């Protein structure tokens, strides 16, 4: 029991010392209305009150500062004297800490504010997407949710670099992904692979194919689709028409759609060797200089030469907007 008391006392000592230092460094200024100020000053001095910044504001108004620790003593001495005393202000380097010590509600408020600031700095209120890959945001949000990054959720333990790398490896459509925290929002920059993108004019009425291939995915936000998934399209074929039918009425609009087409490109390679598939593939890939989904090699022989036909399959995203 005694031991505990002693320990408590020891623990309180540094705090009490700090409290004393804070109190000693804060001054209070008074305006004293009256006459014969030298009597007052001498009386206060005799009572060991340290006086600072003594000046006459008006002939009968004296400004005087004392340490706040002497405040009670000051009032006890001046209570029976014929002076009208008005408190003007507090000053001192540690005034803020003094106010905290003497206003528990303010202290609690400050602590709460700091705690909430720290707490909410790790909360994501929403996602913001930038870059030309933003139209994949729904898919990316699904990926983020699957990986524990949700709106109104905590992001404290999430490594944003790993998250960016994860999105990049999950979606072949992007050439660059960056996740950054901007305030309470997660800023995600998505940049599409250039070889997969064909940007059409926003004001174009219809959306046409820019390549020859098979429609793999089609998303129409405005307009009417002219092809279905699996359809084979030629370059210049209409993919999405710039009109919409409402009952009996047809409205002309500018198409807003995204169509992914799986296209192919063929390369020929002639060799004397029967087993030169690898070289044929390498030459085809070097000539294409783009991202390839898959490839196939056909070999034939004619007049002692081997003819390799390398077919590269790749994706093109055609869209308006």
């Amino acid at each position: 029991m005694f031991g505990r008391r002693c320990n408590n006392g020891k623990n309180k000592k540094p705090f009490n010392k700090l409290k004393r230092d804070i109190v000693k460094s804060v001054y209070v200024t008074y305006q004293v209305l009256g006459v014969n100020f030298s009597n007052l000053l001498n009386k206060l001095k005799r009572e060991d009150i340290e006086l600072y910044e003594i000046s006459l504001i008006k002939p009968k108004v004296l400004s005087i500062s004392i340490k706040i620790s002497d405040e009670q003593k000051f009032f006890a001495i001046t209570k029976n004297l014929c002076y009208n005393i008005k408190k003007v202000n507090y000053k001192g380097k540690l005034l803020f800490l003094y106010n905290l010590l003497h206003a528990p509600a303010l202290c609690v408020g400050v602590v709460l504010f700091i705690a909430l600031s720290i707490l909410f700095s790790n909360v994501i209120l929403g996602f913001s997407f930038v870059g030309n890959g933003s139209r994949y945001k729904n898919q990316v949000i699904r990926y983020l949710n699957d990986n524990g990054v949700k709106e109104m959720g905590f992001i404290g333990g999430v490594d944003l670099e790993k998250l960016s790398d994860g999105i990049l490896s999950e979606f072949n459509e992007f050439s660059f992904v960056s996740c950054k925290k901007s305030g309470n929002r997660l800023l995600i920059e998505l940049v599409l692979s250039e070889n997969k993108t064909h940007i059409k004019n926003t004001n174009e009425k219809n959306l046409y194919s820019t390549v020859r291939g098979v429609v793999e995915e089609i998303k129409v936000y405005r307009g009417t689709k002219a092809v279905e998934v699996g359809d084979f399209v030629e370059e210049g074929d209409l993919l999405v028409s710039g009109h919409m039918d409402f009952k009996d009425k047809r409205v002309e609009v500018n198409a807003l759609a995204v169509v992914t087409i799986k296209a192919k490109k063929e390369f020929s390679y002639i060799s004397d060797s029967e087993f030169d598939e690898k070289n044929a593939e390498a030459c085809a890939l070097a000539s294409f200089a783009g991202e390839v989904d898959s490839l196939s090699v056909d070999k034939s022989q004619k007049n002692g030469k081997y003819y390799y036909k390398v077919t590269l399959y790749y994706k093109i995203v055609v869209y308006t907007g």
Partner: protein
Amino acid sequence: MSFFDEISSFFGDEELFCKFKATLFSDKCVYFEKVKEIIGFSEERIDLRLKKGQITVEGEKLCIKKYCSGDVAITGKIKSLSIN
């Protein structure tokens, strides 16, 4: 040994130095030690009582920066100090 003690031992009259001390910093500030009390106080004139006699500071916009345990620091534009 402090600066004042050194001067005191140099002159050999310690009693002389025990009466009061006044240190003047340019014409902006004057610091007194061993002051008994303040007799009069205005912006132009401050009278201080010493153990023996009194001292008068005259000037403009005089202000007592500190007054405690026999020490008085006066600031302002100090024009004259007179000992009576």
